[in-house]
């Protein structure tokens, strides 16, 4: 049961996967249908049997009672997004990912209208060493989607997270720690999958006009349902 309504599921599905397949949206950021769940952003947190858990890593089971659309959980999710904004340097007005950015879209969906926290203003140098891609570490939300994509799809193991707590950060697989010295290519899935403006192709930043971008057209909740894999015979 999700918010009082029954949701079908198949063995092996997580609560989040079952919900999305049933056209029921639960906010999420680090989850991507093509990669193994990671459970780091906690945006998909819901009450499962009275306990707050990440639904992207919780297996769906018969008899589970899940509450997601509650004012309390909406507040928690809004706070989580505010913390992500405060932890990095997310200057949407001049960010080329604006309109295509999941963090921005989640903020809009969840009603984030203020920072909520004191900004940490990190000073993380840009890596522009690669001829076709660049990394703005100040916008990385540590979702590890690039890590998973590089490992599981590209087979290159270019990215990893290092450090702990506030010092946790994205690194690349080169002694110089420069992207240009890795085997990374602009066609890699690791670049396509970045949900924020951290890993970007060079020289095409504003080729798509404002107003024509992914989340300019439909909110992230509707887009996520469009993208959700569904069992055979079920359509969105």
């Amino acid at each position, binding site marked *: 049961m999700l918010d009082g309504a029954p949701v079908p599921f198949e063995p092996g599905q997580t609560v989040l996967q079952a919900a999305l397949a049933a056209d029921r949206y639960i906010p999420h950021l680090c989850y991507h249908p093509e990669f193994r769940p990671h459970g780091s952003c906690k945006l998909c947190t819901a009450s499962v049997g009275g306990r707050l858990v990440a639904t992207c890593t919780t297996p769906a089971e018969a008899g589970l009672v899940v509450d997601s659309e509650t004012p309390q959980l909406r507040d928690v999710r809004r706070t989580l997004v505010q913390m992500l904004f405060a932890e990095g340097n997310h200057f949407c*007005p*001049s*960010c*080329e990912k604006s309109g295509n950015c999941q963090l921005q879209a989640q903020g809009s969906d969840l009603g984030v209208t203020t920072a909520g926290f004191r900004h940490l203003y990190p000073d993380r*140098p*840009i890596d*522009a*060493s690669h001829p076709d891609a*660049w990394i703005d570490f100040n916008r990385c939300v540590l979702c590890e989607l690039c890590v998973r994509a590089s490992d599981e799809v590209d087979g290159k193991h270019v990215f990893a997270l290092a450090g702990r707590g506030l010092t946790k950060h994205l690194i690349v697989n080169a002694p110089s720690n420069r992207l240009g010295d890795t085997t990374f290519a602009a066609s890699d899935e690791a670049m396509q999958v970045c949900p924020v403006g951290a890993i970007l192709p*060079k*020289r*095409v*930043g*504003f*080729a*798509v*006009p*404002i*107003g024509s971008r992914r989340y300019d057209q439909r909110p992230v909740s509707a887009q996520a349902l469009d993208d959700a894999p569904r069992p055979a015979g079920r359509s969105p």
Partner: protein
Amino acid sequence: MTESALPEGGLRRVAIDPLSRVEGHGKVTLLLDEAGIVRQARLHIVEFRGFEKFIQGRPYWEVPVMVQRLCGICPVSHHLAASKAFDQVVGATRLTPTAEKMRRLMHYGQMLQSHALHFFHLASPDLLFGFDSDAGRRNIVGVAAVHPELARRGILLRKLGQEVIRMTAGKRIHGTGAVPGGVNRNLSRADRAELGALVPDAIDWAGEAIGLVRSLFEANLPLYREFATFPANRLSLVRADGAMDLYDGLIRARSPQGETLLDDVECGEYWNYILEEVRPWSYMKFPYLKALGPERGWYRVGPLSRVTNCDFIPSPRAEAARREFLAFDDGRAARATLGFHWARMIEMLHAAEVIGELLEDDDLSGTELLAGGPRTARGVGVIEAPRGTLIHHYRVGEDDMVVRCNLIVSTTHNNESMNLAIREVARRFIDGRTLTEGLLNHIEVAIRAFDPCLSCATHALGQMPLALELLDADGSVVGRLRRD
């Protein structure tokens, strides 16, 4: 009057802070002696922006979008000047017809909205009611109460400009229409028709605004002829054939007597001809023509310089208005500081005419948006912004990140001229008199003629709080004048 940095003994200091009805925040200080004679008058720019520094290390394609945040009134100018600079970096020595015309349309839309905003909202209260009229109605609300049709037209003229910007840049403020090498959108025929329907009225209203300024000159000729007026070099872009061109051209400078100081100078060579002087009391530099040096080489930019520097305006009604302006009062209106308003309205008419012409051009609906070529490391983009010549200069590293940035914005070019204007007004209207709000507004009227964008970011509209303090040489407050 002295120009020394420190107050001298026995002088008292009067500050107009903040200036009102200008874009951005600034202040004026006056130092008066015991007889009330102004010994020093200065325009101070009190904000430090730092764009030239924090642009460094950013990808070049991000800069046209980021750097336009310098301003909320004329962001299109910064957006396009930066885009023009990076056209050179991506090797786009010639844009596609669609890209060139979309950018021009965007720019003339901005010229229309900015000039309308300045004249009707910011300057007209002084001109219609008098420089020292009741401060309570000396604002756009007061204008709307007494001249409702004039205020309505001002708003609708500005609206047309804003709509042109929205359709070409994606947003009315801080859009993303121009990209290095071209644009990211075209204009549909339906959009062109929708905008085009608004142009005839705009042309008529702009023409009537010129008539209004002329009538103000005629009614107050001695004042308008001489107010804040002084001989000044003038600098602007002109097209290769001498025509007014607000989007692109070659640099021309002339002396007050009309002698050519610079002509046919390629924008990319500007630094061989223009230098900037730093003075310790202002964040704004003082540009000057290298050949003449800082004492004689300062110059004036903006509508008055453009209208008097070009050989002709390439649109019929504006050209007729230009000729009338140049002939008025044996050419003295074209040398007067308040002539800025007249010239600004001529440009507003020209912008409306150009917008109408462009909207009929099918190239605006073309699909070839981008051009490119061999990559270079340096780009200089120069454009005639509403307030004058705007220079963006960048150097880009091999990794595509900006390594150097130099911006000379329109108001910076006018720094010395504005300081001279307030000195002139102080000498004529304030020397030896008891200070009143109305008298001090004369100084603001002189500054407003230049339509300065003092920080190129923040804006003040209507009556802003004004606090004047009279200080003795020790800094003790001996008198206060306050407007809340």
